[in-house]
Every structure is written in C-alpha cells, then in structure tokens.
C-alpha cells in the first residue's frame, strides 16, 4: 500500500514536471539583425514583458550580427527554407534592415500582417510603405528610426558647419581634425559618403525612388574627385565606435556618427558632455529597422501579438526612446504622450524635429547605393 502511494506520488510529481515542460514548449523564435544592443533590447526588455503576458511562451532570441550582413543571413535562411519546401519556418519574428526588408518582400518571404495588428494604424511615415524603392506596405512595422549626423566638440568649435560646403571649408582650415571611417568599416562612413553624393552628385529624392537609371551614376565623377581631395584633409577612423573613440580622446574634433550611439555613449559618460550634434544640409541618410514575420512562421498568431506589443506606444516610449535613445518607429505624436518632457526634449535637443524632417534622408535604392559604394572604391580609394 505504502509503495503504491509512493509510486502515485512520484508519478504525479513527474507529471507536473512534464506538463510544465509542455507548457513552456511554445517557443517564439525572434531573430534580430543589428548590433548587440538590439539583441539586448529584445532579450532584456521585450522578451520578459511578452513572457509575462503570455504564460507558457518562451521567447528565444538570436542575433545575426550588425549591418546589412546580419539581415542578409536571415534572408538566406528564409529563402533556403522556402526553396526546400518546408511547411513551417523556424523564424517567427525577424528584425531586419530596410534594404533587406525590401528584398524579402520581393522574394515573397514575408507575411502581410500590418492590418492584423492594432498598432498598424499608428505608422504613416514613408519608410513604412517604401523600402528603398520596394513597396513594403503592410509587410513591415518600423521598430525604430536611426539617423546619422555630424558630432563635434563644442568646446573647440563654436559655430559648427551647417552644410557640406561649410564642412569642406572647415576641413581646409583645420586639416586632420575631421574624421570618418571610410566605407568598409561601418555605416556611419557610408552614410557620410551617401550624403556627399546627395550634395554634389544627385539629389536624395531621385536616388531614393525607382526607377533606376544607369546613366545617373556616370555623372558623379566630379563629386568623387572632390571627395578624394577632401579625404586628404581628414583623418580616417577605425569604425563607427572608432569615430566616437577618437572624438572622446580628442584625436579628432568632428565626425559622422549614429545619433542613437552618440546619445547612449553620452549617457554612459564615454564621450564628454561638450559633444554636440549637427545635421548638415542638404541632408544625411538614416534608416528604420523593421519588424517582419515570415510567410510561413510556425507561430504566426503569437508573432503578430509580439509585434503588436513591441510597437505599442508605451513600449516605444519606454524601451525605444527612453532606454535606447532611438527615434520611435511609430509616428512620434503617439509616443510623445507617454514620455516625460525631459526625455522628449533630450531626444530632440540638438537635432530639432524640423531639421530632422528637412535633412533626414533615406538611403538610396539598392542599385544606386551599390553605384555609390563601388564608385567610391573605384574613384576615391583606388
């Protein structure tokens, strides 16, 4: 008798354990491109929040690395799963860059989900509909918007340049005091070069929209040769963080940076408070990161709920703006109400909303973008 009770007791304990496993077995696979900070954002902020509201769901987060390369890995994985005819793809939510987001839509890898979620109506900006010439309306929700700008040390530079022309003049007066990272060591340099082409090659509006015209790139020779001359007066830095590092150590006094990185470093005291930002005319590019869900995601419904939570005004306010200093992905007016004045003012302190709308440009469409990078390799760095 005693043994029987024991067995029953043991069995029931075993069963409870087992049922616990069964519950936690629903795994939502979130794959994120971008730097470690983006993986951390999902891991430390979004995942616990989502798991709390969805008992029995475990969020599994995987980072694929920074830059378009990281997004490209997700694209390769999904298209491999598509080509092999799998019924269920093991990515539920992906966070990808703008360019690759567009390619994924073209390749038919994504689900059109925006009308399924409540927050879908909170986005009206252009980048949620048009990803460098590809119509992505309905397939993407912007997670945040990032922007490049020129950082400078206000202790030494009282009147920062307001345009590329003034910047060129400034570097002639102050040789080697401006630094950027070329085009192979991170996107802030690529962004600076793109802005250069917008200023001296072809305007941003033409390059950011289809159709692609092959002849446009041939008219950039003068812009590139001027950039080559410009490069003689500057210092090259080793990467996005390298530019900030050198600004901090006083080795350069001005350089292009990502706004969110700049604010985070400033918050952590890694660059002095005298560093300020200026978004110069005719503009520098920025880009959104997109939340997408694959066409055959295993947990399609959960994925939609996850993205809905991640793009809700309070999460965008607390997580995106306050914790990570990114510009919100959904329209700013929906976020403003959830933030205290100080945080809001900080985000727009140095680059005003009007500067941002006037000089915050998109990256060019993919073929022009390749033309710019290859033109740089051919005519500037060669």
């Amino acid at each position, binding site marked *: 008798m005693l043994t029987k009770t024991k067995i029953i007791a043991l069995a029931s304990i075993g069963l409870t354990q087992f049922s616990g496993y069964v519950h936690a077995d629903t795994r939502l696979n979130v794959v994120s491109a971008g730097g470690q900070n983006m993986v951390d954002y999902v891991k430390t902020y979004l995942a616990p929040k989502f798991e709390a509201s969805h008992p029995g769901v475990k969020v599994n987060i995987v980072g694929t690395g920074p*830059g*378009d*390369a990281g997004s*490209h890995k997700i694209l390769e994985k999904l298209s491999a799963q598509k080509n092999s005819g799998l019924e269920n793809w093991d990515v539920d939510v992906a966070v990808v860059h703008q360019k690759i987001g567009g390619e994924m839509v073209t390749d038919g890898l994504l689900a059109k989900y925006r009308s399924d979620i409540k927050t879908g109506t909170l986005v009206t900006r252009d980048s949620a509909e048009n990803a460098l010439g590809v119509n992505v309306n309905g397939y993407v929700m912007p997670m945040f918007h990032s922007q490049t700008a020129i950082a400078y040390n206000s202790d030494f530079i009282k009147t920062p340049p307001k345009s590329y022309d003034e910047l060129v003049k400034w570097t002639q007066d102050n040789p080697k005091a401006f630094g950027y*990272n*070329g*085009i*192979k*060591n991170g996107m802030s340099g690529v962004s600076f070069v793109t802005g250069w082409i917008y200023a001296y090659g072809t305007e941003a509006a033409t390059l950011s929209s289809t159709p692609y015209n092959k002849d446009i790139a041939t008219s950039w020779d003068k812009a590139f040769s001027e950039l080559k001359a410009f490069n003689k007066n500057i*210092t*090259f*830095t*080793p*990467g996005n963080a*390298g530019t900030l*590092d*050198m600004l901090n*150590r*006083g*080795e350069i006094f001005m350089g292009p940076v990502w706004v969110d990185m700049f604010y985070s470093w400033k918050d952590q005291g890694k660059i002095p408070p005298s560093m300020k930002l200026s978004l110069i005319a005719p503009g520098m590019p920025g880009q959104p990161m997109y939340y997408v869900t694959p066409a055959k995601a295993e947990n399609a419904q959960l994925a939609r709920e996850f993205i809905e939570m991640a793009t809700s005004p309070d999460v965008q306010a607390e997580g995106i703006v306050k914790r990570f200093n990114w510009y919100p992905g959904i329209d700013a007016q929906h976020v403003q109400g959830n933030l205290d004045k100080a945080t809001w003012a900080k985000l727009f302190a140095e680059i005003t909303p009007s500067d941002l709308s006037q000089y915050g440009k998109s990256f060019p469409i993919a073929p022009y973008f*390749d033309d710019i*990078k*290859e033109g740089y*390799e*051919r005519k500037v*760095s*060669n």
Partner: protein
Amino acid sequence: MRSSTSYNLWLIAPAALMVGLFFLYPLFFSLYSAITTDEGGLTLAHLEKAFELYSNDILFTIIIVLASVVLLAILSISIAALITLSPFRSIVSLLGFIYRIPLFIPFIVTAQMMRTFLAKNGLMNNAFIASGMLTPLETVSFLGWSGIIIVFVWKQLAFCTLLITGAMAALDESQIRAARNLGASRLRILFQIMLPQITPTIGVAMILSTVTIMSVLSVPLMIGTGTPTMIATDMAFRINSYGDYHVANALGLVSYLICAGLAWFYLRQSLKDKGAI
C-alpha cells in the same frame, strides 16, 4: 589480401569524407565561383574587377605580410637563440614564460588592446608624455599599417618562437659543445651550427604565420583605417555590402595564390637544400 585493402579503405572513409565535405568541397567551390558567372559560364570578369578595385589592397597585403614575416623571423630567432644559448638561466626561464603569453590571447582581444595602446592619445603615448619624453603635439598615432604589423608580430611571435625554440632544443647538443670547445662564439654557433639545421622549421613557422595573417579580419578592421586595407577586409565588404560572392571568391583566389607562391618558394628552397634540384 583484397579484403584487407577494402577494410583499409573503410577505415579511412570517415576521415576522407570529412576532409572532402568540409575542406575540399568548399575550397573548390570557392575557386569555381571565382571564375564562373551565375549561369555557369567561364569568365575572368570577377578577377578583373578584383584587380581593378583592389590592386592597391593586394599590394598592401603582400607588403604587410612580408614585413611582418621578416620582423617575426628576426625577433623569434633572437629570442629562441637567447633562450637556448644564454648563460643566465633564471632570466631566460622568465623570458621563456613571458614570450608564451600571446599564444593564449585571441586576435580580436589583441586588436582591441592595441587600439587603446597605440592610439594618438593612447596608453603608450600618454606614458611617454607623462615621463617627459614627448610633448602631446609630437605624438603619432600608430593605428594604420604600422599598427597592423605590430599586432601581427606581437601575436605570432609566441607561436614562431615556440616552434623555433623546440627545433633548437632538439639539435644534437654535442655539436654545440664541440664548437664551443674549439672556441666558437655564441653568435657563430647560432649562425653556423644551429640556423642551417633548423631552416625547415623556420620556413614552416613563417608560412603558417603568413596563412594566419592573411586570414585575420579583426585586426585590419580594428587597427587599420580606411584605405588601403587588407584583402580579408575587402572580401568581407564584398559579401556584406553587395552580397557579391564572386568577387569575394576572386579575392580569395588571389590570397590562395599569394600563400601558394610563398609555399612554392619554400618547398623549392628546402628541396634544393636536400640536393633534389
């Protein structure tokens, strides 16, 4: 007899499969991709593009590799010789411990360390300034080609010295003693008795270092600044930025050829030493 041959074949099958699947197949695939179009036709366009855009970088890579290897040879032979021939045993055993430390530090950590050490306002220059040897205006940043060479030499030195010390220790002690008895100086023992016998090992150490140096991406990315840069950076850039595996593989082919060139030079040399040619 026949059955034992087939047994032997079965024995090597797993290893051969591994080598074929994970080494030979990717190797030949990348070579193939370097000289074919997406449709499968033969083309030299990728190689032409690689040379058109990156000929400076290829030259830069060769110079960096050669400079690093020469410095490595000089330094590692000197340290190995000190360790083997020096009469001050206790200092030498300390040196024997210290030189091995870089073996256990990954390249990326070395690069990060050197980035803060070699920068214009980095640890090294600040130390010089604090000790009054330099003024802040005289400092120079070593981030760039010189920094890349410093990192490679610093990191590979341990490996090369280890190999060369080992080879020196394995030499027949009696020859060295005999030379010493006949009045040869330590320098003469090194150049006339030891070095001629260990050239194959030095060659191996240098070639392995070359291959390692060619393949490291983190160092040129973190220490190098812009252009020119090393081939590995260009390959990564082609893939990450354009998704262009063809030109990346063409650049890979160029690195194979550089390594193969050195290996050929070394093999020819060592065969000649053995009197085969």
